[in-house]
């Protein structure tokens, strides 16, 4: 730990934030370890929204997702000196986030409870305050779109956990099969098989709403 701290002491002239924005992830890590304290903030800025979306789509609880994103950054911060610069930083940070999300789902299955988030989601839709009528849009269309979105979210939530992680990483985060394999720690064949099954199951759930 002392070694990490020594590495974080500034040795060079501080770089401007604009300069840091130009750098790649691995370079930012190197800059941070060389003492550029804003380099870590830049990494947080690049990843916090993406990680929040990924974890939220995996576990379905917004507040808890935010806690887990925080925990991800704390772990990255603690172990940044262990990061292998030959690997992709995004794969590393997604691996940490994915493990935290999996642990959360595992703990939740051991201690099942009704999620307030699930109730609140419906509450928001049904109890929004009355607004003046706007004739520029068709309410039927809006209702249909909102309903469809809710059904799509529900369909993803219904996927088994290990299928859902692969599905979200591929479809929402645009990860390659190789990256998904590294993040989830399963073979490439297993990734393909899980993704195929996830798409199949997703299509089965969503089909009646789209036809």
């Amino acid at each position, binding site marked *: *730990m*002392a070694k*990490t*701290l020594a590495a*974080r002491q500034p040795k060079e002239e501080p770089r401007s934030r604009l300069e840091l924005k130009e750098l790649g992830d691995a370079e930012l890590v190197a800059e941070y370890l060389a003492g550029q304290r804003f380099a*870590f903030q830049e990494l*947080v800025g690049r990843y*916090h*929204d993406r990680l*929040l*979306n990924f974890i*939220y*789509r995996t576990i379905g609880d*917004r507040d808890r*997702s*935010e806690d887990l*994103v*925080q925990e991800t*950054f*704390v772990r990255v*911060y*603690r172990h940044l000196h262990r990061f292998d610069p030959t690997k992709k930083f995004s794969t590393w940070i997604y691996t940490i986030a994915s493990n935290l999300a999996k642990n959360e789902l595992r703990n939740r299955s051991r201690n099942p409870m009704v999620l307030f988030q699930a109730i609140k989601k419906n509450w928001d839709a049904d109890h929004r305050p009355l607004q003046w009528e706007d004739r520029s849009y068709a309410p039927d269309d809006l209702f249909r779109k909102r309903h*469809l*979105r809710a059904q*799509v*979210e529900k*369909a*993803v939530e219904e996927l088994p956990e290990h299928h859902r992680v692969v599905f979200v990483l591929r*479809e*929402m985060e645009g990860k390659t*099969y190789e990256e998904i394999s590294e993040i989830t720690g399963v073979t490439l064949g297993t990734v*393909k098989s899980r*993704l*195929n099954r996830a*798409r*199949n199951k*997703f*299509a089965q759930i*969503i*089909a009646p709403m*789209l*036809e």
Partner: protein
Amino acid sequence: MDCEEFLNGYSDYADGLRTPEQLRRFERHLQRCPACARYDRVVRQGIDLFRNLPRPDASPDFLPRLRHRLYHIDDRTVLGSRPGGSAALIAIAAVGLLAIVWLPFAGRIPVEVELAPVAVTAPPPVAPPAAEEVPSLFSRGPFVTPVFYEGTTLRGPQVTPWDPWSRSGELFGASVVQTGLAVPESDPSR
């Protein structure tokens, strides 16, 4: 290509991971099979909807909270790396180690403690308490058991008729003194 083959290899086809020849076979099957064409359409539309779901925004206090947590990690790191801190840790570990080594022998060593002699003075002899049962004046029981202490004389109860004209007297053995009672000295009746 049949439907089973199409569905088993669908992910590779959708992600363009097959050879051009294999991709053409998938396309040909799609043109011939309405069920697989419908499946392909549903998956693409559903995924399109999924990708366009609104993304959750981080709450306004997300970054301040994170900065606070990271600050405390640095803080602990600084405290933990002080030379004094390390020395204290080593000392605590050494004491703990000694305690662990010594504990198994702790029960076997006999402990002898020499105490100073204690001088005690015997109290003067006290007459044994005496008890006497005295019948009540009003009924057969209960009995009154007077308790006498050292220096008192043992006396039986004396019953003297009450003389209201006397300024002092005894009522059932207890001394009674009259006060403020004006009694004429030359009462002809006495």
